[in-house]
């Protein structure tokens, strides 16, 4: 009787022990499977990330090695862009009446915008009357860099509100006004319009610096929407021709994307320091708020 009870309890103990061991084995197996799954995932994702990073660095290197446009202006802080010069610009209607209406139309409509208390350039008798001898030489002690993406709607608004005021400061010889197109919205069109437009800008700088302002304004005037396909290269060529560039000097560079590397390099450099467009630097310092009044106050402070 006692033996039987003892035997039973031994059996139960053995059964319980076996169950416990099975559970422990199951737990170990689960942990092994979970850990190895996580390890495999981490390895796969890590490999992908490293490959993409390597490709990214290669692209950056290619962009670095690519040919920049001629006629670039380099600021003391190392920004390579287009130095605005009204003497060779065709944006003001009175300065060169021969320009196409689409190019000359946009700057003159920008005389109305809010806030800018300064005399609007197109209302004054003639921009050349107020133009200082030092304008557009890059010799002013204050340098203003404007980073823009031609796809960025806020950049268009910025140009409409502040573009004319900036140019009149440049005309008066108070600032060196430098445009640096970037392509931070490259993925917002199916055809990478941002990069193509910035590269086309580079092509116009290279071929005809006196037509850059007109082309710049035309790009904003016919800005495509984010999420669309963007404008085709052929239309960019047409716009450059309308802005007054000889077709044979520009067509190949735009359709072949000769200055895409320059556009990409500028974008890479830009995004390492700044997060959005438009970004305006006064002597290398970012202007925090871009409403017309703040910008004017900052400019006047810098000019002294």
């Amino acid at each position, binding site marked *: 009787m006692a033996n039987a009870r003892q035997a039973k309890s031994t059996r139960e103990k053995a059964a319980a022990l076996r169950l416990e061991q099975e559970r422990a084995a199951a737990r170990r197996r689960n942990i092994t499977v979970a850990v190895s799954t996580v390890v495999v995932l981490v390895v796969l994702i890590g490999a992908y990330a*490293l490959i993409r990073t390597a490709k990214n660095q290669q692209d950056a290197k290619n962009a670095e090695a690519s040919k920049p446009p001629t006629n670039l202006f380099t600021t003391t802080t190392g920004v390579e862009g287009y130095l605005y010069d009204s003497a060779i610009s065709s944006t003001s209607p009175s300065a060169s009446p021969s320009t196409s209406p689409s190019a000359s139309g946009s700057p003159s409509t920008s005389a109305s915008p809010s806030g800018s208390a300064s005399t609007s350039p197109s209302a004054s008798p003639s921009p050349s009357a107020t133009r200082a001898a030092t304008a557009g030489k890059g010799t002013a002690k204050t340098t203003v860099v404007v980073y823009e993406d031609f796809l960025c709607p806020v950049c268009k608004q910025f140009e409409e509100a502040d573009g004319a005021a900036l140019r009149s400061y440049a005309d008066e010889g108070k600032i060196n006004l430098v445009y640096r197109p970037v392509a931070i919205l490259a993925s917002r069109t199916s055809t990478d319009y941002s990069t193509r437009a910035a590269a086309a800008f580079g092509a116009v700088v290279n071929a005809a610096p006196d037509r850059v302002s007109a082309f710049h304004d035309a790009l904003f005037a016919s800005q495509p929407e984010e999420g669309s396909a963007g404008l085709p290269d052929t239309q960019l060529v047409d716009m450059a021709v309308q802005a007054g560039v000889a077709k044979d000097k520009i067509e190949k560079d735009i359709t072949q994307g000769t200055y895409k590397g320059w556009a990409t390099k500028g974008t890479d450099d830009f995004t390492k320091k700044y997060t959005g467009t438009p970004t305006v630097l006064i002597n290398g310092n970012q202007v925090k708020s871009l409403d017309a009044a703040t910008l004017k106050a900052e400019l006047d402070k810098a000019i002294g």
Partner: protein
Amino acid sequence: MLRRFQAWQPWLSTASRLFLAGVFILAGWPKLIDADTTVRSVRAFKILPEGLVAPFGYALPLVELAVAALLIAGLFTRVAALITAAMMVMFLGGIIQAWARGLSIECGCFGGTGTLVSDPVPGYIRDILRDVGFLAVALFLARWPRSALAVDRFLQLDPAPSRA
């Protein structure tokens, strides 16, 4: 009351799994499609050294989608929930430090640029509240990982009900 909770808890956990998976898919997919923007967005937070920005930016969306896949399948639910919670803590830390350092950025949480915004504070508060909500759901799931319609249950990977 307790019994009712026990009856409902697996389904509540399933709902939590699917909810968090949905969040990760909505957040991870645009980040994967637009990887370069994601990298810029990571850079905008100004936490990681430059060398790590790109690998992190490329890996992040895949981690999010992988965790989403685990959550949908209900595989290693507790591990997935803990990873989710850890990621939420990381995102919260990123947003809070951006706020504290006075960076004016958009979080880029669901893809997007991490662009400059003029008044970021309402965005920061909204993002923080949202991530705290996600964190709460993830912690619930980590505490009660047993759920209906889960591979864990099929493979008997569930912790024993008495101990849950």
